[in-house]
């Protein structure tokens, strides 16, 4: 295990996704929180918000979570954007850096979503090449997050955990395990979330994400939407307990992006994650 792995797997209280409406309150009240995760793309334009994050950086462990590098693009990744993300990471020196197994850019257009791809040898080569470029630019390994899916492709030849494990083997990247995404995708495209979790390479997982989801209607059938707009759902807590039981405690993050509530609600969810993980870990050790 190298140094980065040791740091990534040190016990750390649960963190929260830092959102614009909480910037001033975080600075004024300095609540105890494990770490703060920002979306890289929200701070690349500069301005007062970035200066506030720079000040919070002095008191908090940080995580930079990219949402726009489009690691699944057959076109390759946008060099200018890669340079900007690398500059932000170099500047903030966060403890964690992560991105998604997804794509959003084609033909120079940025389609603002984490879009799905077939899991094939061709896709594996594309994503591995793009992760190599990212890790080379950042001079550090990154964590790759499993996406929430609404559709699968008929020509997929690998299950998602197998695809993620192959990326770890090829690029030395780590994994960000989004437990809510596993639950949402399992329900939408039809797989067993527990079997999925059990198939992930546990040692590669450096961070866990938790968030709420919504239930929508699609032509009379229920489809789960990963909207990060509510508290973590009970079955997702259950899956989180299973994850901790299997892989041990990992730095965990509460995400909330739609109808962002008061900061204290995020802190309550983070405290619950600490309690849930602590109880499982105590049982595991006993």
């Amino acid at each position, binding site marked *: 295990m190298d140094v980065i792995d040791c740091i990534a797997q040190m016990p750390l209280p649960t963190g929260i996704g830092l959102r614009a409406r909480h910037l001033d309150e975080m600075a004024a009240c300095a609540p105890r929180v494990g770490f703060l995760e920002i979306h890289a*793309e*929200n701070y*690349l*334009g*500069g*301005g*007062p918000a970035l*200066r506030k994050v720079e000040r919070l950086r002095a008191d908090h462990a940080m995580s930079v979570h990219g*949402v*726009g*590098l*489009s690691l*699944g*693009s*057959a*076109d390759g990744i*946008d060099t*200018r*954007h890669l340079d*900007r993300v690398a500059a932000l990471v170099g500047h903030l020196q966060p403890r964690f850096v992560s991105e998604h197994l997804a*794509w*959003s*850019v*084609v*033909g*120079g*257009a*940025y*389609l*603002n*979503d984490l*879009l*799905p*791809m*077939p899991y*094939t040898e*061709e*896709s594996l080569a*594309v994503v591995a090449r793009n992760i190599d470029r990212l890790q080379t630019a950042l001079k550090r390994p990154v964590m790759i997050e499993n996406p929430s899916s*609404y*559709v*699968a*492709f*008929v*020509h997929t030849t690998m299950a998602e955990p197998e695809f993620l494990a192959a990326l770890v083997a090829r690029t030395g990247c780590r994994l960000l395990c989004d437990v809510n995404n596993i639950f949402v995708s399992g329900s*939408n*495209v*039809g797989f067993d979330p527990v079997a999925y979790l059990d198939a992930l390479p546990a040692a590669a997982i450096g961070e866990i994400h938790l968030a709420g989801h919504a239930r*929508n209607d*699609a*032509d009379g*059938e229920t*489809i789960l*939407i990963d909207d990060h707009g509510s508290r973590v759902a009970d079955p997702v807590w259950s899956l989180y307990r299973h994850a901790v039981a299997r892989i041990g405690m990992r730095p965990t993050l509460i995400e909330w992006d739609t109808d962002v509530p008061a900061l204290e609600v995020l802190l309550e969810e983070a405290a619950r994650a600490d309690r849930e993980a602590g109880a499982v870990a105590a049982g595991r050790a006993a």
Partner: protein
Amino acid sequence: MSALSLADLQQAFRAHLLGEEQAALVAVAVGDRIPASARLRVYRHHVFTSLTAALGVTFSTVRGAVGDDFFAGMARAFIAQSPPAGPVLSEYGAGFAAFIERWPPAETLPYLADVARLDWALNLAYAAPDMPGLTAERLAAVPSEQLGMLKLGPRPGVALIRSAYPIDRIWALNHSGDVDTVALDAGGVCLLVFPRTDDAAFASLDPGAAALVAALEAGDTLGAAVEQAMAAEPDLDVGAALGRLLALGALTDPGA
């Protein structure tokens, strides 16, 4: 069924999201209890609603002026025609004002493109680097015989927005609460948009001060800019106009 290459699948996905249903994409998407087209609709819905929300933040005065429904229709047409070129959403919308000017349903709202220009200028000013502008003390230290030859451009983030409509009052109607009606025939304005430490703001300029900024922006020396300002407004108090620009931190410090 024939498998698409990843590049072809992504091209088809883009066309599907921004426009017409792509049979080749639907054919490779798994449709079981939920049809493939309904599954793909989730992504299309998210792309349009999230980008509309991003434009609504940047162009908050436009959105307030026309209401959410009209704004969403206008944004949807713009997104389909000009999707973002990059993932930094605060940088999306450079072409929105020009689009509004040509979009037929907005023809009856001739002030709307100028309101969009004001929103965009405020957005750029907000993102400008936090650097001090030229101060009155620094300018006073310049030997008087050199003043006329100085080149004092506007600092990054500063912009001059002219309109034949009272867009300052349209902005205030939507943001400040101090204004509850706007007479569209009240006359035009010239607004100086500038960054502040924690946000961005604008101030109304008289014709002489506006001519002064426009000339400095064009690269004229201070002496030439003052001549143009005096031509635009013969009884201009040049010292007061320059003092106001310095107080707003609107000019670059050529020695900094």
